[in-house]
């Protein structure tokens, strides 16, 4: 990968330009041992903080979650843990609300990720044209990324309000009548996806744009010499070249949509938000976890939900991997 660095103090290496005066042999040996130790230990010292912090606040709690899931722990008495075995797991697995949350997370994930990535791809294509004020356009579409989940969810909650909401006003104006967005099963999920799509499309478009600009121009030259239309070039040159990036954005968006929390929590706010709507119609797994652990105060089942999420994540990873493999096979 690279040229090698001659180790300092190693036998045969030059003593350096500025050695002031000759040292006694013992001192020199000590010094070179010190240098060698510096070279050996430094890289580990530099990466240690990451692994220490991650170990303490990421990995250890992740494993500890499994242990807590087998206990009764209440919010009001955090230091009392009582062994209950698989009870927490059977409790959530028998809870219809849990399965509603699983289904909601999945549905919202799909209807927010798919349009988001498709629009991002088209947008990246537009931005890749020779464009006046290209930096301006890029910055504008990225602006939602600077907005917090909370601010975005709250302003969209206002737009999607049943009474006096901006969207219903507009629909009324063109004669389409009112919709109680948060109450419907599909309408509430759509509303949440809109928030997600709004915040992340520009970000993904920029990632695609960067990948597009890395496609060698000879490929397009050759394609246009062969008489390929613009659409054919996009279809047969751009998309294949972007495949790894597309896969990457799918993975990242999927993981992101597993975690949706602020959007559903704040769509209606208050206790209705904490249970994901009157009929849990937009309750996601994170909201379910929060509701169990922090609203009802049962941390044991909440930990069991965390493990269910891990299982789901592994399942999605496996599907991603299988799909990726079959795509690679069919194109080969």
């Amino acid at each position: 990968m690279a040229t090698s660095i001659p180790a300092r103090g190693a036998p045969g290496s030059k003593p350096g330009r500025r050695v002031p005066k000759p040292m006694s042999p013992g001192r020199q040996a000590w010094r070179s041992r010190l240098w060698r130790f510096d070279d050996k230990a430094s890289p580990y010292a530099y990466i240690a903080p990451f692994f220490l912090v991650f170990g303490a606040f990421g990995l250890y709690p992740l494993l500890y979650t499994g242990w807590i899931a087998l206990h009764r722990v209440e919010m009001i008495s955090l230091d009392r843990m009582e062994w209950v075995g698989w009870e927490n797991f059977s409790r959530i697995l028998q809870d219809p609300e849990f399965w509603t949350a699983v289904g909601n997370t999945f549905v919202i994930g799909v209807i927010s990720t798919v349009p988001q990535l498709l629009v991002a791809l088209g947008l990246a294509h537009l931005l890749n044209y020779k464009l006046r004020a290209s930096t301006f356009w890029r910055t504008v579409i990225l602006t939602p990324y600077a907005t917090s989940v909370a601010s975005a969810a709250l302003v969209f909650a206002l737009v999607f309000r049943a009474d006096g909401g901006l969207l219903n006003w507009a629909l009324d104006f063109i004669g389409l009548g009112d919709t109680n967005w948060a109450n419907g099963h599909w309408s509430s999920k759509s509303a949440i996806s809109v928030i997600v799509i709004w915040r992340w499309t520009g970000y993904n478009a920029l990632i695609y744009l960067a990948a597009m600009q890395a496609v060698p121009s000879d490929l397009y030259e050759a394609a246009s010499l062969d008489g390929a239309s613009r659409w054919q070039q996009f279809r047969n040159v751009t998309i294949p070249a972007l495949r790894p990036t597309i896969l990457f954005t799918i993975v990242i968006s999927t993981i992101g949509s597993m975690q949706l929390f602020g959007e559903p929590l704040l769509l209606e706010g208050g206790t209705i938000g904490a249970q994901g709507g009157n009929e849990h119609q937009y309750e996601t797994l994170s909201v379910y976890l929060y509701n169990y652990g922090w609203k009802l105060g049962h941390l044991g089942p909440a930990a069991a939900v965390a493990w269910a999420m891990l299982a789901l994540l592994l399942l999605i990873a496996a599907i991603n991997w299988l799909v990726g493999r079959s795509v690679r096979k069919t194109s080969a």
Partner: protein
Amino acid sequence: MTTTSTVTAPDSRRVSKAAAPGTPPRRGRFKQGAGRQHHAGPFAYFALAVVGIGSLFPLYWTLVAASRTQDEILDTTPPFVPGGNLFNNLEAAWEQAHLGKAIWNTLVVSASITAATLFFCTLAGYAFAKMRFRGRGALMTAVVATLTIPPQLSVVPLFMMMSDIGWGGQLESVIFPTLVSAFGVFFMRQYLSEALPYELIEAGKVDGANNLRVVWSIVLPVARPAMMVLGMLTFVQAWNDFFWPYLALNQENPTLQVALGQLSASYVPDQSIVMAGALISTLPLLVVFVVFGKRIVGGIMSGAVKG
């Protein structure tokens, strides 16, 4: 973040990738990238304008709602221009949501997370980019793998741990888990492996500098542009973080996002006051965006593709 490795700096290793993406060396009539050879037509501008308005309108609507009364924004015909009630709403939000404390807390949290992330990620990124040690590949893979673990999986024990060591409800419980970031390590490694020539490190060592000295006087100056970008991305993220702070902090000691969440969860919240809070939480970042937008855009583009 393990994607294509198709982008390579052409001749010089020291091109500042973070500063100027999208300006590759161009030769001949054909420029790099799909469609680059074509000028955008009116349709492209029209589509971009539609998306642009869609991107900015919710922010504008936040301003309109924050400067009106609840009755006005929920009227049968919504007001489309800002009104004169902004300061009343800000004052109300200030009292109801501990906004003053929230702003201070958010600044403390974001600044300390950004400083720590920059320090640790630059060191680790340098080690992974330019130093040779046993297990480097495996450890780097481990770093990237941590990106895929959602915070949801560890919040329950984290909450118990924090209350155990006396950080329950304290800012420490939000700051410490976020002191490092896998993305940051990855980002700095990418940048330094291209921007920092081995000759420079060698020269330093020949001059008798130890490793720390090399980091201080050679690596840090070279890394500065990337650190700027990483710093802004980290700051934005820390400022906007919602899930864990919402669980970890309480009403008396919130960050801005937590205060916002609680404001909207209060019994029959006044929407114009909530929007005033949202405006306060968004405005500083919008200013950062207007000033440094180009660099942030470049940073996201350069950080995402290479790997």
